[in-house]
């Protein structure tokens, strides 16, 4: 039985359904974009920290998708899973950073290129063919206020610590 006010409500109901659907769709696209960008970053970068950063970005994209599904289905499943993902990501970050410190200790920097001993016997080592020079813009020291005293920029003194 259709009541006179039902038409608007029905249209509203249909509109709500479509709204939810499109919301879900959009969130999934955003999640996919985050995931994809994270993948590109992970595959391209050499700094261990930045690599891990991209992994976290991938996780974030997944979290967005999960929450979107949870909202769509109207239950807690998505959010609960994301909470656990969060917890696990935190553990993983801790251990990963501990390992990065160990690796830094052994190689003196955070470059992934030093850790290729799993390669096959007759493969040659991947080495840097050319090391790009830093841009002028990258070596900009921060501009301090007149009150601050700029410290010495002695380029001969080694800047990195020998140990952590």
């Amino acid at each position, binding site marked *: 039985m259709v009541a006179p006010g039902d038409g608007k409500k029905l249209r509203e109901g249909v509109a709500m359904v479509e709204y939810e659907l499109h919301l879900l769709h959009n969130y999934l696209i955003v999640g996919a974009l985050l995931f*994809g960008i994270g993948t590109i*970053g992970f595959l391209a970068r050499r700094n261990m920290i930045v690599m891990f950063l991209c992994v976290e970005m991938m996780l974030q994209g997944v979290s967005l998708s999960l929450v979107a599904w949870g909202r769509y289905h109207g239950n807690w499943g998505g959010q609960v899973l994301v909470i656990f993902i969060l917890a696990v990501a935190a553990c993983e970050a801790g*251990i990963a950073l501990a390992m990065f410190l160990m690796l830094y200790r052994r190689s003196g920097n955070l470059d992934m290129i030093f850790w290729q001993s799993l390669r096959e016997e007759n493969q040659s080592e991947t080495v840097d063919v050319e090391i790009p020079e830093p841009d002028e813009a*990258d070596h900009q020291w921060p501009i301090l206020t007149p009150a601050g005293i700029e410290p010495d920029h002695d380029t001969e003194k080694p800047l990195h610590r020998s140990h952590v």
Partner: protein
Amino acid sequence: MSDNQTLFAAATVLGALGLWQMLPRARSGIGRVVGPLASLVSLGLFGYLAPRLMLDLNQSDTSMIAGQVIFWLLAAVTVISAAAAVTMRSPVYSAIWFALTLLGSAALLMFQGAQFLAVATIVVYAGAILVTFLFVLMLAQPEGQSHYDRVCWEPLLSACTGAVLIGILTLAMHTSFTGGDVPVVASTAAESSDILTTDHMARLGAELFGRHLIAVEVAGTLLMVALVGAIAITAHGRTGRRKETAGGRRDG
């Protein structure tokens, strides 16, 4: 392929092109301009596609429109800062941009009604994890950046892989959505949802500690194990000699 799908593909390709040029490498003069330009165009295309999936603007009420606009702004912020985080040449800048991504993502989560998660993202991710990243960066790379931050492994291949991945994912979604495969759940009316309530936190707590109690306890144990493990890893390595030079792979 339909129009929408073509546009999706074009947007993805342009975005990949832009990212490729923006990735840290020896850039040519053209690349410095083309990269960000292509990415912006791609984002614009994505944005253009968005309203076509919207409802007829005349029919919806203003709250919905406002909601859509806010959503796309937040999404733009998130994606732009994600792209920036990936392509920065200084890892510290990457971390900062990632913090912005997390903020955007938290806002998006809030928009979905996941209030606790939004705050948790900021507190745990941006507050704890990211700060730890910065700690390690400062300890290991005091000058902020190094030569290996200015090179990539395989920029073209990575960009293509990412593009294809995004393309497949979005295509899959689009096909199944417009093909009417997704079952319309009648209970998706927002009012009848469990999540969109005023005592959201209490309900979330009840759900966690009620239905997923054991998982929560296990997660807690996992956290403690990770703590112990992290300390064990770093403590173990301190017994060796210090290695001054880079490239050593023996016992340090």
